[in-house]
């Protein structure tokens, strides 16, 4: 498998606060990599640095071997990296279909074609019967679906999901897990920030653990859950016991 994204020694400081310090890892094509860590570990900051929402203080981001550090978010999206938001940002005054079409317009100027693309994606994400509902009046699970669908409509190579399972019930989480696996089967690469261990462990190929801005572990899920430092920092004894 060839390398898709490489992060080299990313450091991000906000004044005297160090949010990320010297973080490096790589993501290969068709991989599902998860980024975990306790609150305040710097996951979303790292996410924002990769997606171009603010430039890292130092360090580099490479996509397909090309340096993309500090490029604006819309350019990074055009290169093939699309993100979702932790706090869902559904376009409230547009219908579900229009939300997704807005993403699809990245690849076509034609309204008809955008509609066809949106239709396919709604099929895949289970939104077809809700296409005429306004974004603002959806339930939280459907808002999250729209969030993912809109990102998918830009046809990314790397999809970055920021806590897309928080606030969902067990069945809904299962749906999202299956969707992630389907997407990978369709050729996408995923970088997932998530808190819900039960969901993340079975679908991830690799896990990167952050704590207080630093990477403290990286590896396949079963190794990570047994890593002493990770347990101490984040998972706690209870999960450690359950994991065994």
């Amino acid at each position: 498998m060839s390398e898709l994204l490489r992060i080299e020694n990313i450091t991000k400081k906000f004044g005297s606060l160090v949010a990320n310090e010297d973080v490096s890892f790589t993501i290969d094509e068709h991989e599902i990599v998860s980024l975990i860590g306790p609150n305040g570990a710097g996951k979303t900051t790292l996410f924002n640095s990769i997606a171009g929402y603010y430039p890292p203080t130092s360090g580099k981001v490479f996509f397909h071997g090309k340096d993309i550090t500090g490029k604006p978010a819309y350019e990074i999206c055009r290169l093939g990296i699309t993100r979702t938001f932790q706090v869902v940002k559904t376009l409230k005054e547009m219908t579900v279909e229009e939300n997704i079409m807005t993403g699809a317009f990245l690849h076509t100027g034609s309204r008809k074609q955008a509609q066809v693309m949106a239709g396919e994606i709604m099929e895949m994400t289970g939104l077809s019967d809700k296409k005429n509902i306004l974004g603002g009046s959806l339930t939280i699970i459907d808002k999250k679906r729209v969030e993912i669908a809109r990102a998918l409509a830009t046809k990314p190579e790397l999809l970055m999901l920021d806590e897309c399972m928080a606030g969902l019930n067990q069945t809904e989480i299962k749906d999202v897990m299956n969707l992630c696996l389907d997407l990978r089967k369709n050729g996408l690469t995923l970088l997932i920030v998530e808190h819900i261990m039960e969901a993340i462990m079975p679908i991830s190929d690799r896990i990167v653990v952050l704590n207080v801005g630093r990477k403290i572990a990286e590896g396949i899920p079963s190794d990570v859950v047994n890593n002493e430092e990770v347990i101490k920092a984040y998972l706690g004894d209870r999960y450690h016991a359950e994991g065994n």
Partner: protein
Amino acid sequence: MVNIMKKYSLAFVMLAAFIIIPLAVRTTDVHNVIIYILIYAMVGEAWNLITGFTGQTSFGHAAYFGIGAYTSTVMLEYFHITPWIGMLAGGLISAALAFIINFKMFKLKGHYFAIATLCVAEILKTIFSKWTWVGAGDGIALTPITALIPDVGKSAVAKLAWLSLDVRNRLPFLYTTLAVFCVIFIICAALENSRIGFYWKAIRESHEVAESIGINPRNYKLLAMCLSAFFASVGGTFFAQFFKYIDAITVFPLSVSMIFVLVTVLGGLGNVYGPIIGSVIYYSLDLLMRRLTGSSGTGLDQIVFGALIVLVTCTEPRGIMGIVDRIRLKLAAGKRGGESHE
């Protein structure tokens, strides 16, 4: 084609009304009111592009309105150039100015941007009220076109080019205004349904989402602002030709900017029908109050209009068209419910 007819059926009904009413009611005050309606609806459509669709509140559209009025007037009075060309020139100057100013100003968000737009109009007002070449405080009174250019009637085309914008032929002038309004309306409606319109609305709701799906917000905001400035300027040219007199405090003040805002907000912000509906109500009220009370009722229409704005925006932020849409949805739902019942 049938789809378009169905989707914009309201537009066709209104167009028919605007064609028939001036022929049916041949009084000057009614014709004047209709011209006012069309001019302010024109600028309302322009304002709607940047504020209604793209979400960047402008309280200074009088700036572009005034530039349109002054450019065509100066070109006509000083250089004897037809207002049609003056209209285009004014539009291009406005668009260029909008580009230069907003290139940096779009870094401001929300209220701060709105205040900055207000300042631009106020600065222009001050400049034009001191600038002697354009009449300074005295302004410019427009000479009748036939007096200015006596040999205008050489060919039919030349005649049309000059006299279609001479307000002394009130009915032809009214229909010219209507035609130009229709062109602007069609462009706005087409834009709303295109990729550009979708991007504008995405930016209105969230800059971050827009960026996450590959939209450069600044470029699309600039496009909206430049188009908006162009159309507002066209409205300014019509105003000058209609009013036959301009000075800085007639075309540049905040009260003029607010008319564009208020008619659009009442009619429906972010709805292509909003400006025309709002404008019809605003000027019909004006006419009605004058007919009912004579000159003693001056300002009464403003009180009623103000109350109406408060009432409508409190019940539905998307204005009268928002209420219409809601009723339409309810009716559609009722129909479906009825069908399933059977």
